[in-house]
């Protein structure tokens, strides 16, 4: 059974119909890529799943239970964690405090272990643990945002444009980290403009076009798909 099933969801910004019946599924331990151009509805899809926005139609089933109208903060405890677009680190909290906020819903005693493994995954963060997050570089902030999202021990990790604004060498670091997280059994739903990178690490992918799923296939097939190549991979 799929870990996440999105069934025909319709989401609005005021009167603007942003998602016009999006459906897809994410199986356990998969990496799924959502690609598409600006305004196609990728971010809105993630915001609807994470509970920041409520769909007006359709439903979302996570782990066998309907979550369409569940508040974002309650979904974190149920294992859905999101790295928002633009990273969203708390600039006036230190690196360590940011990570501590990531573990806000945890009640067990292993938080400090997870802190150590976060620092092991991103050693740069350890060097800067007492620094305000606002003083970090863009790449370091992205690492912090990912590490922070992991602190709640999610089953499903939603990543919104993790490569945005990063130098190519840092994009590689971030994508390696995503693969490593997936190899530890975390299911990943990845929204990316950088379709090339996303399809390289994904198992399957969905192409969104003006609020609808236009194409769905395995990542390997999508890389060979003519439309995808032309529109999203820049191959003529």
């Amino acid at each position, binding site marked *: 059974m799929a870990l996440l099933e999105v069934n025909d969801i319709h989401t609005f910004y005021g009167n603007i119909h942003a998602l016009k019946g999006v459906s897809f599924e994410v199986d356990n331990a998969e990496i799924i890529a959502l690609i598409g151009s600006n305004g196609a509805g990728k971010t809105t899809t993630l915001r609807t799943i994470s509970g920041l926005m409520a769909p007006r139609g359709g439903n979302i089933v996570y782990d066998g239970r309907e979550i369409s109208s569940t508040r974002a*903060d309650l979904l974190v405890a149920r294992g859905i964690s999101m790295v928002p677009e633009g990273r*969203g680190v*708390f600039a006036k909290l230190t690196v360590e405090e940011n990570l501590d*906020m990531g573990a806000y*819903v945890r009640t067990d005693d292993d938080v400090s272990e997870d802190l150590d493994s976060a620092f092991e995954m991103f050693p740069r963060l350890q060097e800067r643990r007492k620094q305000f997050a606002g003083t970090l570089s863009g790449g370091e902030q992205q690492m912090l945002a990912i590490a922070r*999202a992991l602190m709640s021990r999610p089953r499903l990790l939603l990543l919104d444009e993790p490569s945005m604004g990063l130098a190519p060498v840092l994009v590689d670091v971030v994508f390696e980290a995503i693969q490593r997280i997936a190899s530890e059994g975390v299911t990943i739903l990845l929204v990316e403009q950088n379709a090339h990178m996303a399809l390289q690490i994904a198992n399957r992918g969905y192409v969104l076009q003006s609020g609808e799923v236009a194409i769905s296939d395995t990542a390997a097939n999508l890389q060979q798909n003519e439309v995808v190549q032309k529109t999203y991979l820049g191959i003529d």
Partner: protein
Amino acid sequence: MFRNKSGEFSWVDFTIDVLRVLIVLAVVVGAWNTLSSGRISLAQWVNLLAAGLSQGSIYALIALGYTLVYGILLMINFAHGEVFMAGAFTTFFFAEALNRTGFLNEQPLLAILLMILFAGLVSMTVAVLVERIAYRPLRGSPRLVPLITAIGASFFLQYAFRGLYGSSFKAYPQVRALQGAVQIGDISIPVAQIFVFCSALVLMIGLHWLVERTRIGKAMRAVSENKEVARLMGIDIDWVILFTFGVGGFLAGSAGVINGLFRPQGVNFYMGFIPGIKAFTAAVLGGIGNIPGAMLGGLFLGVIEAIGPNLVLAGLGIPGANQLKDVIAFTMLVLVLIFRPQGILGERLSETKA
């Protein structure tokens, strides 16, 4: 000078600059006259300073409530003065009861601690109820709406408490242990003022610990910075906002008792208005939304109020200078807003905060 941003002469800027020069001149001349006349001895200055710090620490405690709420909701809770009153007024009856049994003078420290806790809890309850009933349903509406609601809540609380306890002034029983003065050389400082200052200091250290060290404190800072991301951390925003109102209320209630103990005229339903406005001024002086700013702004305002009239106004030959301390307080507000609009410790208001 005398030119606006495009470099042209502007009468408005000219007038403001002339005003600035006149104000600075008035302060310098007044202070020079007073100091050169030697009418006020060093010991008297120290006394004024101590009185100012003691009054200022009351302002600071109330100002923290304004600044905490502003930091998290960008809203001025104009009912906060009434939250202060609620604790102080209600605790009068508790103090009377403690006094009748004799406990107040047998165990003054323990009794006062109990009173502070009691008032803190009463004010906390009032603050939390106001948030839950009056403000939460309006969250997300234009900013003028909660502002008007806050003013309405303020009147509601004043008259609700008048209905509950009557409109007369009620004076707290005297605590013998807090009378008298500490003598250092030829300077004598009332024990009451030392007590007020020290209790406020303890409460402020407690708040600092809460905000900087505890998980809920970090959550408060996270919510004030970015509510949406805070929700993605699993933080229940509504609970954190309620908690913030509660903390602000507790501080205001404690301030109410600490103040009430030394108000010879007593407490009544209207006692929150002026301290509320002054504390708001203090919060703006320090930089609203900034916690150390509110502490500093409160102390600063208290000291300026105590020293300013004697130093500046008396030196300019203005009669009854001490009755004009409110003029000094609000002149300071205008001055700070002219020279440093973001307040003493405030950051420049960015688009998100403005």
